[in-house]
């Protein structure tokens, strides 16, 4: 009886083998990858989709989500590498992949290539074409062209396009500072160009530094005449501060303009992070 019980016990252990599943099977990997993708865990989703694409070379959805995952992570160079490997002929790639390819080109700042691709790829939907054309002009800081595209395509109700259109409209109010005007103002009154460029504290300090150095130089020359070393030394320092203030004013205007461009770039990035 004991022997029989032992045999039954050991036999029952073998059921555990049947109970096990291969968790790395294609189907399970797909389910898990889809779960990760829906959970927006894109780095892990990309790793799972890599395995699926390896196991099943015909799975288009997995390929698309693999590329999307890399785009979502911000690894555009790898996304591009994957697109080139999986879809070597750019003109014949499916439209969803073409969308991702356009995103990659725009985010890699290869705007001329993006323009050429947009022009030559035949299957783009009208909305996508408008979206990417607008994006390219915005990223290239061609505000007027961006506004023209935005106004031409007012019937499009795609959310990303509307967000980009709003940014394009916003560019109408941009008023850049002229570096030359800024320098010119600082030539007349030290620091005035910096005040014009929005950096009034720097302007005030420029005026103060130059003014003090000039005053010291004047004192030296006034007391001891043209041979005053004090006057010449402070004169040299005053000249340095004066020239530096003109140079700095030109730079300040460029800094102001760069800050505006940066702020728009960040808005564009934010929209682009949500483009699927």
């Amino acid at each position, binding site marked *: 009886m004991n022997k029989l019980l032992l045999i039954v016990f050991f036999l029952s252990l073998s059921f555990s083998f049947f109970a096990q599943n291969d968790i790395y099977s294609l189907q399970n990997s797909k389910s898990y990858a889809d779960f990760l993708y829906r959970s927006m865990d894109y780095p892990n989703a990309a790793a799972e989709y890599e395995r699926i694409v390896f196991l099943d070379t015909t799975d288009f959805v997995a390929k698309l989500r693999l590329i999307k995952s890399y785009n979502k992570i911000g690894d555009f160079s790898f996304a591009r590498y994957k697109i080139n490997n999986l879809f070597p002929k750019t003109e014949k790639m499916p439209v969803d992949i073409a969308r991702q390819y356009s995103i990659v080109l725009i985010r890699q700042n290869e705007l001329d290539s993006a323009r050429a691709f947009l022009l030559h790829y035949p299957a783009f939907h009208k909305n996508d074409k408008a979206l990417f054309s607008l994006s390219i002009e915005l990223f290239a800081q061609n505000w007027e062209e961006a506004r023209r595209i935005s106004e031409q395509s007012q019937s499009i109700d795609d959310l990303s396009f509307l967000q980009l259109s709003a940014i394009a409209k916003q560019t109408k109010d941009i008023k850049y500072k002229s*570096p030359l005007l800024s320098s010119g103002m600082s030539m007349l009154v030290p620091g005035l160009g910096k005040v014009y460029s929005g*950096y009034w*504290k*720097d302007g005030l*300090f*420029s005026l103060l*530094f130059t003014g003090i150095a000039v005053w010291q130089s004047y004192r030296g020359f006034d007391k001891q005449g043209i041979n005053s070393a004090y006057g010449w030394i402070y004169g040299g320092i005053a000249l*340095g*501060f004066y*020239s*530096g*203030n003109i*140079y*700095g004013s*030109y*730079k300040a205007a*460029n*800094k102001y303009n*760069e800050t505006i461009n940066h702020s728009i770039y960040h808005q564009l990035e934010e929209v682009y992070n949500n483009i699927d």
Partner: protein
Amino acid sequence: MKWVIIIFTIILYLLVDNFSMSAQTIEEIQSLANINEVHQEDLYKNVREYKNEYDLVFSKAFLFYKKFLSSQDASQCSFTPSCSVYAIHAIKSQGVLVGIINFFDRFSRCNSLSPEDYPKNYSNNTLIDPVRDIKYHIINE
């Protein structure tokens, strides 16, 4: 008895001490020497390389300032890189005239009144302001 204990202790001490003592080997001395040898990164390697006489004068002046003057006090500059490093970098990359003018602009901005205009370096509580040209492009070393 007292003397016996004292003499015994001294003999014991000498014996134990003699057996336990051994001279340092050459390897041990070398390893100790290596401990004291600190490999410091040469922060001003680029400064030591100069293209012409002006470059040489400014490089030497900078190194003198850093070694004998600046090193005697805590860093007071509001920026990273400091004004002196900015100056030598600007002179080396933009030439003497433009470099000095660029430095004067930087020097007049060296106050902590505009922290909102610069990113912050949290490691030493300074403001990050790399050397930039007139178009506001960063000049790399």
